[in-house]
């Protein structure tokens, strides 16, 4: 019988606005046991009358300090709090890491096709960091789907992703004027990338809202990727 994953106290040590509705929280978590890129954790907030609630968040960083990136959901119970009044020194509880399937390990040698819908880029950003930290040279292609350029999180760092990593943006509602790809939902062609075809046997990690993940996974299967090479993480019901 293994012991339960304990709740730990996280202290906010920094915050960074990524877009008008998405915020990074930098956390100090004494005793954090380490994690693999792609894993998530559970956050628990407790009100002063004892009421508490939990939500899952992917870890955005490959190591410590832990970073989370939270997209505000209007009318949400937890995300407006995490993206709103929290400031350095504030504390909340979390436990993890959780999930041993939606992960990338530094010893993995296959090319990696990463596909993110909106805030689904969070665990994939941890994969990019882990690859860099480990000195891995596996080729990576990241497709980021966002509504408009203003919704692009991590835009600055993804503009210079490092050697061996390409980043392609898919704009679903409005594309920048110089973008040869017109605005529109992610299509099979966006996922048909030289060097990341089924013959190249890439690992495919897909993360985002349920509908997005469903669509992308179906496209990848239709392109010929074996189901076992496609790992998915779903963030929420809509989006």
């Amino acid at each position: 019988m293994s012991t339960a994953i304990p709740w730990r106290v996280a202290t906010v040590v920094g915050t960074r606005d990524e877009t008008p509705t998405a915020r990074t929280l930098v956390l100090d978590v004494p005793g954090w046991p380490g994690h693999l890129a792609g894993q998530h954790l559970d956050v628990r907030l407790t009100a002063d009358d004892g009421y508490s609630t939990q939500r899952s968040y992917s870890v955005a960083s490959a190591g410590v300090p832990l970073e989370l990136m939270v997209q505000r959901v209007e009318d949400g119970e937890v995300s407006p709090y995490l993206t709103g009044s929290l400031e350095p020194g504030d504390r909340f509880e979390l436990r993890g890491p959780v999930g041993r399937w939606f992960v990338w390990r530094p010893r993995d040698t296959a090319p990696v096709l990463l596909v993110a819908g909106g805030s689904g880029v969070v665990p994939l950003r941890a994969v990019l960091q882990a690859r860099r930290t480990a000195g891995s040279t596996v080729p990576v292609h990241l497709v980021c789907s966002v509504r408009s350029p203003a919704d692009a999180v991590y835009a600055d760092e993804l503009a210079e992703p490092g050697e061996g990593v390409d980043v392609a943006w898919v704009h679903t509602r409005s594309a920048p004027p110089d973008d040869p790809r017109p605005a529109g939902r992610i299509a099979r062609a966006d996922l048909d990338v030289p060097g990341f075809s089924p013959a190249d046997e890439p690992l495919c990690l897909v993360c985002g809202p349920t509908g997005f993940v469903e669509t992308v996974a179906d496209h990848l299967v239709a392109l010929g990727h074996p189901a076992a090479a496609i790992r998915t993480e779903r963030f929420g019901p809509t989006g």
Partner: protein
Amino acid sequence: MPIISKGFRGRPGGRDPELPPGQYRTTDFPVLSTGPSPHVDPDRWSLTLVTEAGETSTWDRQALLALPQERPTVDIHCVTKWSKFGTSWRGVSLDTLLDGVSTAASFVKVASYGGYTTNLPLEDLRGGRAWVVHEFDGRPLTPEHGGPVRLLVPHLYFWKSAKWVRELQLLTQDEPGFWETNGYHDYGDPWREQRYQGD
């Protein structure tokens, strides 16, 4: 002592005694899966029950529809924290499928099209607490929700309700399934918040 999150009040509806600990209520339909949804042709779907002695019974769609149908309306609880109240389904009770099956097994390993597996005590499939279902809300089950046929065991976290169900293997010894070997709890009772190993 829990840490009080300064300024956090929560939603009034969160304090609902019908919610298991750590869950919140949604009106959407939770989806949790590990990869692409297999698209199984309903006319090629079948479910096989294998006893520990190797005896098998198999039902195809027609055979399943010929059995007495029930319409359970139940609350479901996903380990990713969503609970959805009053979901309505149509299908066949496991009591019906297990009726007349001679077994001394205590465990079941459930296998799905696409390779997913999960494990449960056999007892949890009996007593009007488990079904194989083919309709949700009056419509055929869609692939992302486990169609053409999924298991429904609402008193456990929803990952136990295997989608795209293909085989029920009766075993004398417990054998962990997919999530159960990936850090999740072996039994998964939402009321005892058995999310992860050791909970």
